[in-house]
């Protein structure tokens, strides 16, 4: 499921029609079926060994198998109505091999017998051998030690799938009611829950069982001024998280107070929607921004998306090399810039790191989808480009002999490939609060929440909107603005980074729908940061009349 399908399914894209052809992303099942233990680990090992042995017997020099069960649950409401309850399950097996130096892949739905997985393995070998004839250079796979029989489970405390549907519906209808009471004309709200049960085995000797949970509560509130015919929306300030239902059981320590409340590892949906209803109305009469240069103070609920687009994507090695040229594009961050060891990606304040281990993040797993133990590594250190994101068949290109562990497939039926790790901005080392940061800004805009986003195919020129914009005049917040977007260039922008709040303000944002590849695959990824100041950024006014 990609972003567009999700928006259509949930009605979250304001004004967009529910298109009739939403692709099937699993079969619909009863909610209780999501709690079944579909298949035990011993059976999975037998299915895996059958595939690995069959592949080796047919001449594969390497083979891996992923046995995956993917569960989704959506609760979708508007105002006082439940619009949809969707429970889906998808189960199958994907086998990947190297034969005659070339990759081959085959997948089979509902595979429950050793004969089925062995057959898929044989097909994968046949495909590899056929494709090998077209290939000039054989695959070079970084060595990887086997881990034996191991497991990893997301550190959740409350499995969202165990919470009764009624409790979820009641929560959303209460949220909607609060929005309406506080002046909203319309409200759409959604709970989206994901569980990936993945078993990976390879001829390296790994048998890895993992249980991954993700959760995203969100809403859009709409306010309308019937006189002018204008409308404004305010989306939730929640973040999709690698968490269970505990994300919705917020403690006071999870709230960050300020001009509006923002959230850390727990989300108070009722509090946020109450603020959102008032803010959507306030937006209708907010002052339209005067275009020009401003110092921007960017909240983590906003900055995550700028990090995602302008750092996460250009530092994916497959883009740098041209494998995504026909779709997502290539990258300005070419190998020569990395080799020079002095390419100023950003100012000295800027250290950006990749991390597949951070608890609560969307990308956190024990091992990636090719059996590599996950870790943290620097991409930009004190402003200088130092590394990329790469997987086993790429790391030799950057002179390393160990994968960074960021390989992922969105389904048992998709081929795993390099995907973005959680990429985050390291917090400032000197104590600094948001209030103290704003005090020093003469002419600025404080932006909270993510909005419109667009960036070119080599990741130079970008434009971002937001949810809430506040004018800063002589160190004080002077009121709400509207029609704000900023445009910049990646290197120029990160070099204008002047200050970063310390780790007390560090929070995660993220997306369920990072799209890449043809056919397109979706990946979920988080980005952490503290509130950050960028000086002299070009702001445009997006108000128009039609």
């Amino acid at each position: 499921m990609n972003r567009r399908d999700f928006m259509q399914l949930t009605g979250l894209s304001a004004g967009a029609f529910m298109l009739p052809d939403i692709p099937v992303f699993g079969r619909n099942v009863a909610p209780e079926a999501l709690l079944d233990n579909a298949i035990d680990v011993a059976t999975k090992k037998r299915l895996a060994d059958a595939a690995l042995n069959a592949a080796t017997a047919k001449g594969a020099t390497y083979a891996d198998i992923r046995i995956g069960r993917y569960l989704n649950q959506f609760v979708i409401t508007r105002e006082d109505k439940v619009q949809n309850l969707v429970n889906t399950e998808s189960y199958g097996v994907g086998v990947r091999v190297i034969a005659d130096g070339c990759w081959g892949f085959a997948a089979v739905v509902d595979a429950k017998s050793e004969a089925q997985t062995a057959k898929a393995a044989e097909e994968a070998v046949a495909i590899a051998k056929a494709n090998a004839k077209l290939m000039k250079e054989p695959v070079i796979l970084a060595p990887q030690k086997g881990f034996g029989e191991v497991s990893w489970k997301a550190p959740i405390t409350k499995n969202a799938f165990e919470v009764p549907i009624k409790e979820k519906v009641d929560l959303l209808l209460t949220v909607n009611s609060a929005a309406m009471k506080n002046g909203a004309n319309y409200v759409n709200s959604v709970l989206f829950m994901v569980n990936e049960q993945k078993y990976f085995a390879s001829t390296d000797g790994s048998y890895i069982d993992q249980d991954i949970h993700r959760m995203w509560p969100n809403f859009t509130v709409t306010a309308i001024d019937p006189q002018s015919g204008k409308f404004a929306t305010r989306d939730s300030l929640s973040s999709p998280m690698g968490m269970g239902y505990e994300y919705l059981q917020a403690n006071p320590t999870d709230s960050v107070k300020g001009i509006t409340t923002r959230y850390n590892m727990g989300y108070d949906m009722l509090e946020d929607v109450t603020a959102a209803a008032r803010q959507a109305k306030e937006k209708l009469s907010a002052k339209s921004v005067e275009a020009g240069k401003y110092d921007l103070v960017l909240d983590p609920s906003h900055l995550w998306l700028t990090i995602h687009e302008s750092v996460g994507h250009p530092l994916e090695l497959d883009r740098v090399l041209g494998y995504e040229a026909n779709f997502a594009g290539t990258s300005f961050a070419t190998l020569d810039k990395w080799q020079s060891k002095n390419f100023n990606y950003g100012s000295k304040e800027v250290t950006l790191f990749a991390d597949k281990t951070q608890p609560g993040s969307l990308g956190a797993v024990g091992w990636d989808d090719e059996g590599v133990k996950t870790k943290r590594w620097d991409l930009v250190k004190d402003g200088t480009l130092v590394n990329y994101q790469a997987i086993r068949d790429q790391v030799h290109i950057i002179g390393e002999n160990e994968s960074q562990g960021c390989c992922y497939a969105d389904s048992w039926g998709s081929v795993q490939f390099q995907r973005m790790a959680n990429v985050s901005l390291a917090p400032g080392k000197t104590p600094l609060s948001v209030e103290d940061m704003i005090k020093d800004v003469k002419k600025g805009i404080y932006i909270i929440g993510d909005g419109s986003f667009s960036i070119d195919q080599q990741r130079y020129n970008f434009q971002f909107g937001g949810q809430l914009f506040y004018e800063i005049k002589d160190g004080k917040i002077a009121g709400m603005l509207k029609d704000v977007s900023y445009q910049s260039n990646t290197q120029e922008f990160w070099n204008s980074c002047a200050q970063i709040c310390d780790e007390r303000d560090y929070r995660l944002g993220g997306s369920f729908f990072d799209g890449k590849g043809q056919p397109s695959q979706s990946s979920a990824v988080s980005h952490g940061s503290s509130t950050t100041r960028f000086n002299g950024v070009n702001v445009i006014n997006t108000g128009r009349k039609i």
Partner: protein
Amino acid sequence: MAIILTETEAKTLLQKVLSYSKADECEVNLLGEQRGNIRYARNEVSTSGGQINQNLTVQSAFGKKVGVASIDEFDDESLQKVVRRSEELAMLAPENPEYMGVLEPQTYGKSNGFFESTANVTPAKRADAVAQSLSQTREKNLVGAGFLEDSRGYNAMMNSKGLFAYYPSTNVNFSLTVRTPDGKGSGYVIRGFSDFKKLNTQTATQIAVQKCLGSAEARALEPGKYTVILEPTAASVLLENIFFSLDARSADEGRSFLSKPGGKTKLGEKIVDERVTIYSDPANPELPASPWSGDGRAQEKTNWIEKGVVKNLAYSRFWAKKKGVKATPFPNNLIMAGGTSSMEAMIKSTKRGILVTKLWYIRSVDPQTLLLTGLTRDGTFFIEDGVIKYPVKNFRFNESPIIMLNNLEELGIPERTVSTESDRNYLIPPMKIREFTFTSLSDAV
């Protein structure tokens, strides 16, 4: 059982499913699809594969309590199970006040969207089509990255009032980016057809090669308002944002660009240049589409914008009843009527302008005005005194397709194209637009 069922096989299967139903009303939707693809990059095949998908969805209703369940296995036991499950879910569900009941049998027009040439594409044929592209980029020492995907499938539905509908279709999309080895030039082409025979990867590749070579050493122009000639694929990614916003309910609720003060809508009003006519027609031979919508309503030829005036909006059956109007479904295809100018003639009549091959990363900036942002990509050229003078650096734009269609200069001959944002196929003319708003420059090639 085959994945692609014939009309008779589908009918028999659906009748069997309905025979298991004990609900007040039951509706069954059925689909089967097979896809095959080849992806290549750096002049090498990178992946190839296929996908098979079949699904049967049962909707059971007791009064206004509705339950839906689906399954991808079609043995008798599975079919009975899925019917029972939908009935159990319906019993548990709250009443849905917007449930309208299943439709009486409908009459559908004819539309041929299934072509044996596409249905019978083999891996070898796919590889051959790609080889005709790869050989050119390899020979010319350019770098090709492309994707070819063909699909064949059918949709069918039947309900307890006796409605039956069946539609088979095929499609092939081919896209290619060609770059110079030094990364200074990049060209693009995309093609979509129902009939594989119409796809010529060799001539398509020539276009991308030509654009790639022609786009190297681009010069920077100042951002600002320019006359542009948009090729159909560039126009499609802007125009589809109008199509996606044809929903009557959003307009009535005051949250659409089609809303007006006082709870009114722009239905019946002229919103764009009078030469703009946008319609849907499932029987169009160039862009055939299913003659029925997912809930069984007949798709008729419908004008959405006629001579610049909003003529129709799309309604759910619930909203149409509430408003007392005809329940026109959201269309299955969209066509924009064109003019008679060729691309060459449009370029020739341009004093100063920019030719745009492709627009990329389109996002809504303001749904109130349909303001969109995005960038040019893979072939942007400066036109002066009727000739293409030189390649220019890519621009970011901020523009509304509504404003753009008010600034219409000229329309060319419509052709089938593919949106690089949604993968949907459309019939859209190339168009010349004055005062198109470019807001900044990009260094991207």
